[in-house]
């Protein structure tokens, strides 16, 4: 069925946003926790270097998800946007502050301005994934009605929402720390690599605990989803757990090769596990499923066409961006100018 394909496209978008955008958010979290001016400057430098040329492109996955969601499942989209309006507003404002703070920090020179914009970027990197998580929690726990007239605090402040909100923050931190561990070791900075390895292990452990807690909470909040996760979706849940354990084992033994693919696979398995476990239900607790709430056939075909075109055009472009970035051919010209100037001054 084409509608399953479209559901898969939506999950693919979520996966890519979680893996790529999530790591960028996590970078902001580690920036927040990097400490003072002297202590924090090496990790902040690496975070800044790794995020700078790619965050806008990674961010577009969010737009992509929103558009596919409203195009293919308009009623469910309107329901979520109405019932969970407040956390979505907060996430949107957080996105504005985060992007602007990050872009502005690069351009200012006075330390107090750098601190102000840096703190704006870092703090909003914390709140955006949290509020997005509460919205996913609201959907997963079946608190979004099919035709809500008003937003309601109870929709997104249930235990499932708060747990998934916290889980999103932890997973972003985990992904970012594994990426940064690998990046630091590729650059030969072993001290920084160990620094992020410790943090990756901690964030990974917290993510694991929060995942288990969420699973237990879903047992009472949405038994049907729990059943899906422990039956149809079980292989994916196991894959995710295995990836998490493998990453922690690699970190403990000081390896950095394979960290990125394993951590991404672990996160992807959870996203797809949710999708498989809930299939074909769109909004649990309502009659809205992939089949009852989808747009007309011609629109679904258009969505698939757009996705194929995106895969053909955007895929290779992303590979080009990531490979140039990976070979350190992209760098902030501002930084370079400063380096030249200080070099010339000495």
């Amino acid at each position, binding site marked *: 069925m084409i509608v399953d394909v479209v559901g898969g496209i939506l999950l693919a978008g979520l996966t890519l946003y979680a893996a790529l955008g999530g790591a960028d958010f996590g970078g902001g979290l580690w920036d927040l926790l990097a400490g003072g001016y002297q202590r924090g400057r090496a990790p902040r430098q690496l975070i800044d270097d790794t995020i700078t040329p790619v965050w806008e492109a990674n961010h577009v996955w969010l737009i992509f998800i929103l558009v596919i969601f*409203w195009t293919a499942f308009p009623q469910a989209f*309107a329901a979520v946007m109405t019932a969970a309006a407040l956390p979505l507003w907060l996430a949107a404002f957080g996105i504005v502050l985060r992007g602007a703070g990050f*872009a502005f*920090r690069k*351009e200012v020179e006075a330390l107090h301005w750098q601190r102000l914009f840096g703190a704006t970027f870092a703090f909003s990197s914390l709140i955006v994934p949290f509020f997005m998580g509460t919205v996913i929690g609201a959907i997963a726990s079946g608190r979004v009605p099919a035709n809500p007239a008003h937003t309601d605090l109870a929709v997104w402040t249930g235990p499932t929402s708060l747990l998934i909100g916290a889980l999103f923050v932890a997973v972003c931190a985990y992904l970012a720390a594994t990426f940064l561990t690998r990046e630091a070791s590729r650059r030969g900075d072993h001290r920084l690599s160990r620094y992020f390895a410790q943090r990756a292990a901690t964030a990974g452990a917290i993510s694991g605990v929060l995942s288990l807690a969420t699973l237990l909470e879903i047992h009472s909040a949405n038994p049907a989803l729990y059943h899906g996760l422990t039956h149809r979706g079980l292989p994916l849940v196991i894959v995710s757990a295995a990836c998490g354990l493998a990453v922690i084992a690699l970190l403990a033994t000081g390896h950095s090769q394979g960290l990125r693919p394993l951590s991404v696979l672990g996160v992807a398995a959870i996203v797809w596990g949710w999708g498989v476990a809930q299939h074909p239900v769109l909004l649990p607790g309502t009659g809205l499923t992939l089949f009852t709430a989808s747009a007309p056939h*011609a629109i679904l075909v258009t969505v698939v066409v757009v996705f194929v075109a995106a895969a053909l055009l955007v895929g290779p472009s992303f590979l080009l961006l990531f490979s140039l970035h990976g070979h350190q051919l992209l760098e902030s010209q501002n930084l370079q100018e400063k380096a030249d100037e200080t070099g010339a001054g000495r």
Partner: protein
Amino acid sequence: MHAMQVLAAAAGGQVVPARAQMATTLGFHIILACFGIAFPAIVLVAEYRGLRRSDDVAMLLARRWSQVLGVLVAVGAVTGTVLSFEMGLLWPGLMRTYGAVLGVPFGFEGIFFFLEAIFTGIYLYGWQRLPGWTHFWTGIPIALTGIGGAVAVMAANSWMNQPGGFTLSHGRIVAVDPWQVFFNRASLYETPHMILAAYMVVGFMVASVYAAGILKGHRDRYHRLGFGIPFTIGAILTPVQIFVGDTAARAIASEQPVKFAAIEYVTRTGRGVAEYLGGFYVNGKVYFGLRIPDADSLLVGFSPHTRVIGLNSVAPADRPPALTLIHLSFDAMVGLAFLLLLAGLWALLVWRRRRGLPRQTWFWWLGILCGPAALAAMECGWIVTEVGRQPWVVYQLMTTSQAATTNGGVIDSLTAVIVLYAVLGVATLVILRMLARRWRQGPQAEPEAGVPYGPPAERREPTGREPA
């Protein structure tokens, strides 16, 4: 705040604050969108000149402009995201019924936005390590996808003005023809109108900055080129834009006659309709306007006998509100376009006479004015098309109140948006001024600290083994 809430309740729930919020966020984002659409091409013109003629001044301009572009694209990316959220948060009624249709153009826009963001990342940060012409070519996709994205977004907006290409049954879309949605009738004139506007806004805005420098006495080649490249682009496109705008107005007269009647103060349907320049509209009468008999009929059909449809053709509830705002915005847009045309002609005449830029102080004052004038004209155009479309969100199919959210508290998000965007706007301007000051001072300006929060990476480990 209380008064606004009462006002909102009187006007039927959340539609007034929701419209105010959409106007605020769109009015802000559109400026950045213009830079996203048109600035890359202008930067590339400078870079091309720099590479082709080994022109260091052009190259320096291109590098500096691309740094400005980086700041504006980042702010534009996030304010654009707010608009995507607002489609659902402010207008769930619209999305519930027409989300599937609107998704067609926005889906293609997504692809363009992806490519734009990816190649912007490569172009902006590729200055150091990519070879000259390779770097230039990585910028070409940004200019092309900027235009592509504009085509897609304008397809969505023009579809709301000229909806078609779908079948509605019991309030649900049952069939869609994506081609008809994308290439609707209004997109033929709305799209070029907006793309030209973007190039004019950016061209004249950038030129303004250097006009101010020249007026201060910096008549060096850097300032002359910094003015000349963007001003030429804006000035060449101005007459094209006036032609496209005139065509659009005539198309609106036949396809959205009530909007046209609001624009031109046409109270009653008839022949020999007069044109008003300026003037206020109160209770069916125009005050203080300059009335030109038969001129409106002449403009619409090239004959004073042309029949023009008036506001009386529809019930009062189906007429747009704030007629004075619509009419004066239209007049301001047209008037400012002719001011820009005048500036371009002035420069052209001087250039033909002696292959140089004008020397008169007046010209440079006009040059400074051109940027804000182009920006104001563009914003006025949006006021005309969006307020003029009311009370419809999807023309003659869905009213804006039917589309608006039923959630309370839009006043709160509106307040938050106004505060947030005011801070964002001021911060962006301050940052750009800081950059300009730093460039003026030259390389002597030693940074207090590297980015972020510390000395540059090179000084990371104070081992005492300083390079000789």
